């Protein structure tokens, strides 16, 4: 499904990694490892198409992602360092807006249920501005869960989350992969995914 071939990345004249190869199929997860500044985030941004690689290419269903922009956009969801939610809107509005921009219908009940699932039952009607960092992270994760994407690209999804939140994310990833989804993620925290053993990829060694 997702394949990268001979990928290289440069950041300001400096080579972060090169010759990266892997292929990921349905029901598989990949954990990208590497210290700070080794190019994990750069790799994930290349994977979702926000940055261009210095060499090599990323393919989705056999097509280079630049050419499959529409299909890839429908089947891929990205959670980056920034949550991508608007401070002036409520979590509920944020979720429904994200769905509408992705070309999907998301009813108020479904959005509400997703927010309850990530533990935000009490703040659905507050502007996101008054929420804490961890709560905003949860809104972004609720948007991810309702995106209906096949491929999840998660950059440090556990940042700012409490113990319950970490368990919730682990549950989301487990269910997603068990249902045949793909996940590519980075994290510095231990990730307990039960029977799911993510494959590991080291960058910038």
């Amino acid at each position: 499904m997702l394949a990268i071939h001979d990928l290289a990345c440069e950041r300001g004249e400096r080579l972060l990694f090169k010759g990266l190869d892997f292929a990921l199929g349905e029901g598989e997860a990949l954990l990208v490892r590497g210290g700070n500044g080794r190019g994990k985030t750069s790799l994930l941004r290349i994977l979702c198409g926000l940055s261009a690689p210095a060499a090599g290419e990323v393919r989705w269903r056999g097509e280079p992602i630049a050419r499959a922009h529409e299909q890839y956009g429908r089947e891929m969801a990205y959670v980056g360092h920034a949550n991508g939610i608007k401070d002036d809107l409520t979590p509920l509005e944020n979720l429904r807006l994200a769905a509408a921009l992705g070309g999907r219908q998301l009813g108020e009940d479904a959005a509400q249920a997703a927010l309850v699932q990530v533990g935000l039952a009490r703040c659905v009607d507050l502007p996101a501005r008054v929420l804490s960092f961890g709560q905003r992270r949860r809104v972004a994760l609720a948007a991810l869960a309702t995106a209906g994407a096949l491929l999840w690209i998660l950059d440090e999804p556990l940042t700012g989350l409490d113990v319950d939140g970490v368990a919730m994310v682990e549950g989301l990833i487990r269910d997603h992969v068990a249902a045949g989804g793909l996940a590519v993620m980075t994290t510095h925290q231990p990730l307990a995914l039960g029977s799911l053993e993510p494959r590991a990829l080291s960058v910038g060694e």
Partner: protein
Amino acid sequence: MLSFLFTVVRRDILLAARRRGDWLTAQFFFVMVVSLFPLGIGPEPTMLRTIGPGVVWVAALLATLLSLGRLFADDHRDGSLEQLLLSPYPNALLALGKAIAHWIINGIPLLLIAPVLGIQFNLPAEALAVLVLSLAIGTPILSLLGSIGAALTLGLRGGGTLITLLILPLYVPALIFGAGAVDGVLAGTGAEAHLSLLGALLVMALLIAPWISALALKVSVE
């Protein structure tokens, strides 16, 4: 496709409605700048009538520039621009939607205030009508071309000054034909020629600007 465009426009209008203070600054700036000229130059009716169209148009350019800095900057800061760029629709459509929303939020209020300000310059009713018409065709050009500058200077330090230097030269044709249309009415030579050229500029900006903005956005986000 159209529903995506519509959603982007509706989103930006909703966000502007939640933050009225932000976008009202540009309209107040427009009113202030235009009102300063009669005060500074003195109440000489023929002089005011001569400079009126140009002053209103220059103030509209500056007010547009003032509001352009925020066109993509807020979305860039909170990461929603990345999500917008990853949506399954062409990025040019996103840029077009943002420009249309910018025009509705910032351009239309200028049109509505302009005739009131024109009265200060002793412009006759006929000239006021052409002034509004020229702004109606011209302000979308300002929003479209401005979106290129906003996308190019995204995330740069001192982007506000840079955008002025980048975009003001591109605004010159719109200024010449826009203010020229009103001058034409005052001089009795008619406004059709200027308005037609302004319309041609608008069509060109509509066709080209969204694509360039989309490319610039991709580069800036990277």
